[in-house]
């Protein structure tokens, strides 16, 4: 019985029609992480919708995605069936790791999903709102410790931008980097640090339960279901989205680029993709074509400037 089941599983896994537009998606991260999940969700949607018959996901983890990016730039040159998943973290990682390749070396197709940052304090904290936090920061930047993700990542960049907007020297922020959202959240809940910053999704459940107070979010508009102002409302000119994108190989023709863009567009509109976004709690921030390119250029320039200000990039 187990043998037949096993056989059936193998047959099912191998049963794919012979002729197909076959994409290979590079996930520049280890299996299980955000980029890997994005790549595998794309795989599922592209196959289920019949946009592509066989989609392979290949993991090339390392150094904020820059190892995968370097391999992609070198190996996929001019190949229209090669895709890579990436995101905002890559923008910073390329700069801090002094990566020899950058996003200018690939053909960005579209932004797919995104998350906004939230600034929180433990419920027991004396700080009641974002202005209170900014005042404390102005009074003594060292006394305000921020827990967030890895150095040079979206969280760190956001703190740098906030300090700068508030007129505080960004090199003087006391940022405590943690490896994952979980560990940082524990430090915040345990009142080990003054404030915390991470993707809104990491804090939402705790905030709803009353263990954390969300002081502000990094979106342009208020977010439904979150009782907190945007940073802009608080008078800080900071907006930041931690997005994930898909890019194609360097050196492809405009026709090939258009074909890939059309495939991705069909995927994003599909029910499979929309359902997957809903179950995973990812916000659809689809943006393609020239608009995406413009946004990307803006993000790269702003990130480069703030990383210099924080002192992470020379």
């Amino acid at each position, binding site marked *: 019985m187990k043998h037949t089941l096993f056989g059936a599983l193998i047959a099912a896994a*191998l*049963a*794919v*029609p012979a002729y197909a537009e076959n994409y290979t998606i590079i996930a520049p991260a280890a299996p299980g992480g955000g980029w890997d999940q994005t790549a595998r969700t794309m795989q599922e949607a592209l196959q289920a919708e019949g946009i592509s018959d066989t989609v*392979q*996901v*290949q*993991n090339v983890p390392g150094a904020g995605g820059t190892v995968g990016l370097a391999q992609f730039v070198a190996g996929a040159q001019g190949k229209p069936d090669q895709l890579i998943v990436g995101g905002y973290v890559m923008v910073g990682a390329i700069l801090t790791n002094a990566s020899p390749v950058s996003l200018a070396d690939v053909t960005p197709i579209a932004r797919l999903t995104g998350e906004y940052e939230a600034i929180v304090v433990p419920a027991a904290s004396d700080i009641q709102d974002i202005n209170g936090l900014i005042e404390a920061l102005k009074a003594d930047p*060292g006394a305000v410790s921020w827990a967030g993700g890895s150095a040079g990542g979206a969280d760190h960049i956001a703190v740098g931008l906030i300090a700068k907007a508030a007129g505080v020297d960004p090199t003087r922020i006391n940022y405590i980097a943690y490896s994952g959202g979980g560990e940082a959240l524990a430090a915040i809940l345990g009142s080990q640090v003054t404030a915390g910053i991470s993707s809104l999704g990491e804090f939402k459940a705790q905030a709803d339960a009353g263990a954390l107070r969300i002081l502000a979010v990094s979106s342009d508009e208020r977010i439904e279901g979150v009782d907190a102002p945007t940073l802009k409302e608080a008078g800080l000119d900071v907006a930041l989205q931690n997005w994930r994108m898909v890019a194609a190989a360097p050196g492809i023709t405009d026709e090939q680029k258009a074909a890939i863009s059309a495939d991705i567009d069909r995927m994003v509109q599909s029910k499979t993709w929309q359902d997957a976004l809903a179950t995973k709690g990812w916000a659809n921030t689809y943006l393609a074509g020239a608009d995406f390119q413009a946004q990307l250029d803006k993000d790269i320039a702003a990130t480069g400037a703030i990383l210099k200000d924080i*002192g992470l990039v020379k």
Partner: protein
Amino acid sequence: MSGSTPQGSGATRRPDGATLVAALILAGIAVVIWRDAARLPQAGGYAGVGPADVPRWIALGLAGLSLWSLVEAFRSGKAEREAQDTGPILWIVGGLAAQLALLSTAGFSIATGLLFAATAAAFGKRNLALTVPVGITFALVVYLLFAGLLKLSLPAGPLEGLVWDLFRGAKP
């Protein structure tokens, strides 16, 4: 912290070569770490302990252990050790190197099959006409299980491509 290694008993008073080499290697690592640390910016921030400090402490520790080994090498004298065959080592190291070199071009099964055969040869099965095909078949079965069923991304070569095509051809 007693002064003698167990192997050292009853040996002549010449310094122990292996311990001397260990002392040298440790000193080498310490120097590499120290020089790497010197290149790092002293960005201790509020902690006062920066990215270069812990490497320095470890380099100092290694340097201390290097000195200790140096003293030990002369104090305990030459040690007796089991005789070692270099042949099997070369077979296994060669097999791993072959797998490394061939993996991306020849694919998982062929590269790993060669490692299999080389390891078997290291343990005395030198009949490559038997072990190479067995190894490649074994690796191919492993490949199909893990790449096919579990979607583990393993490098595919001509052999894997052929088998995929066979499976596809069998389907309407």
